[in-house]
């Protein structure tokens, strides 16, 4: 199964390089390119990519604003996974990208193998991209815990097993790691995870982690599972 990728970056040479690298990978097909956030929205609508690799820093509409717009836009029904390309790895604007709905981030100087692996991981959805880093980012920048009524109801609706799975997903474990921890098969884990995400109303694992910290289910420092 090939993954259709849209490449977004304002620097032509950078874009050309990304397209060349990713296009050469057997599992990946380049759906298209865009030079800024606004064009990216257009292309996403018409091309319906599975994954969008997008730079944060762009004129017209930057990566974070574009991510927000993409996920809010009702006319884009085939919701793509977004990987944000950034210069720094720990920063409040990287967290802003995650909050806006990006599924993960990559440094702009990631090696070709890293790029490819990242796209596969995000597409499969079995684990967080750079789990330790992503969690550290969320711990540092997530809002102070306050549980809304909606969150409480949603969390209360989880079965015991689902709650266990939720906590482990929020701790950054991959599906296979969760399976090993709870002594269940990976396929079963996958099912639990999708049910948890659906019940909590979050679109992917990253959002689940953010929810866990912001609703106080996980407290920073307490978790030593990774």
């Amino acid at each position, binding site marked *: 199964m090939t993954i259709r990728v849209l490449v977004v970056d*304002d*620097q032509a*040479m*950078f874009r*050309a*390089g*990304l397209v*060349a*690298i990713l*296009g*050469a990978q057997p599992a990946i097909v380049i759906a298209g390119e865009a030079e800024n956030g606004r064009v990216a929205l257009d292309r996403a609508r018409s091309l319906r990519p599975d994954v969008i690799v997008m730079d*944060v*820093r*762009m*004129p017209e509409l*930057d*990566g*974070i*604003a574009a991510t927000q717009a993409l996920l809010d836009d009702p006319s884009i029904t085939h919701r793509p996974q977004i990987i944000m390309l950034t*210069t*720094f*790895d*720990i*920063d*409040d*604007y990287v967290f802003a990208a995650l909050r806006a709905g990006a599924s993960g981030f990559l*440094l*702009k*100087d990631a*090696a*070709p193998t890293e790029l490819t692996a990242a796209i596969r991981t995000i597409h499969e959805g079995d684990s967080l991209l750079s789990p330790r880093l992503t969690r550290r980012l969320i711990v540092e920048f997530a809002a102070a815990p306050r549980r809304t009524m909606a969150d409480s109801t949603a969390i209360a609706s989880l079965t015991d097993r689902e709650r266990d799975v939720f906590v482990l997903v929020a701790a950054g474990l991959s599906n296979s790691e969760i399976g090993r921890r709870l002594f269940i098969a990976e396929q079963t884990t996958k099912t639990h995870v999708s049910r948890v995400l659906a019940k909590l109303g979050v679109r992917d694992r990253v959002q689940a982690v953010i929810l866990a910290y912001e609703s106080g289910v996980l407290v920073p420092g307490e978790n030593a599972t990774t």
Partner: protein
Amino acid sequence: MSGTGATSLAHTVLAMNRRTRSVFGVALLALAASTVSLHAAVDGLAIWLALPLGAAQAASVFLAGARPRTAIAVHHLALAGIALGTTATTYLWPVSVVSMIVLAALVTVLGAAGRTTAAAAAWASGTILLLGVVATTSLTGEAPPSWVSSIVVAGAVSAAAGGCAAVLRRLRDVRSEVEAARSDSAASRSELTGAQERARIAREMHDVVAHSMSLVHMRASSAQYRIDGLGDEVRAELDGIAEQARTALREMRTVLAVLHEDADADAVTAPQPGLAELPRLLADARRAGIAVEADLAPVSPAPSAMVQLALYRVTQESLSNVVRHAGDSTATIRLSCDDTTIVLRIHSTAPDEGSTAPTTSSSAPDVGGRGIRGMIDRMTAVGGSLDHGPDAGGYAVVATAPRDRTAPP
């Protein structure tokens, strides 16, 4: 303090003392003359006693500020001597009025000099001395009862005077301490602002470099995917270059993390600005009420990202100064270049000035402030310069930058 500072301080002290000293001298002589003459004439003190004792009494008041304990000792000894040597006693006072006044003066001067313990000691011991006079007189004869009440009144008055003097002195001291603290705090605040500005400039410059480096990395790591038929050796070499670039970027990130302290949020989601973004700056200035005339000659080949960023920031800073200080002005921006140099000139005038009128300080940027300092730093960092000053009825900022002769076309 520098050497010249110390010498000038010494001179100030001497000069002050000379003036103050002469004033003191005159006052001392006046007081001494009064005490001596009054003791001799009114109190019946023998002249050979009145002269030294009266003089000592007067001197103690003037000594009180510098040497409180000596002053008190001298005063009390003189007072005791006067009391013993006086033949004529009055009904009201245990010792002569002038002596009571001098005692009160001593207490007050000590209070004013900030020597509160000494003032209290002088008051207490003086009062005890006077009561002693009452006691000794009582042994040899009748001591008028009004003496004790006089001592009480005099004691109260001198305590009040001394107390007020001490409080006023304390107030003055506290006020000068607050002043000193305030100017210290202002000095360190301006240092901090300067440092923050320099950190911001350094961060932006590193950012430009990091951006270039990530392009180098992308070119090197994607080459084998873009160009067919590259042999193994070439690929290995390119991978090595890419690896090197990644290391450089890792190191760059460490530096930038240190400088990133007060990053403003929108600076990192927009690309670093250059000459192409100048029109937008001018439009913003026009919206803020400045009439902007621009003459931006294209510079080809385009200067380096560093130079462009520096010129952009200089324009940004100059225009925001104009907006801040003189809302209705006219600003003229001119960008020109020859073979070796790029010149950017930003001239501003307030609307009611003709070319013959002198510059108004309102349109000049804060010359000592971080704005000008930052602009100068940015231009010198790219090998250029910044000049600023009154010009043709307004104020001009002129930035120059060298053209890169080795830049590719």
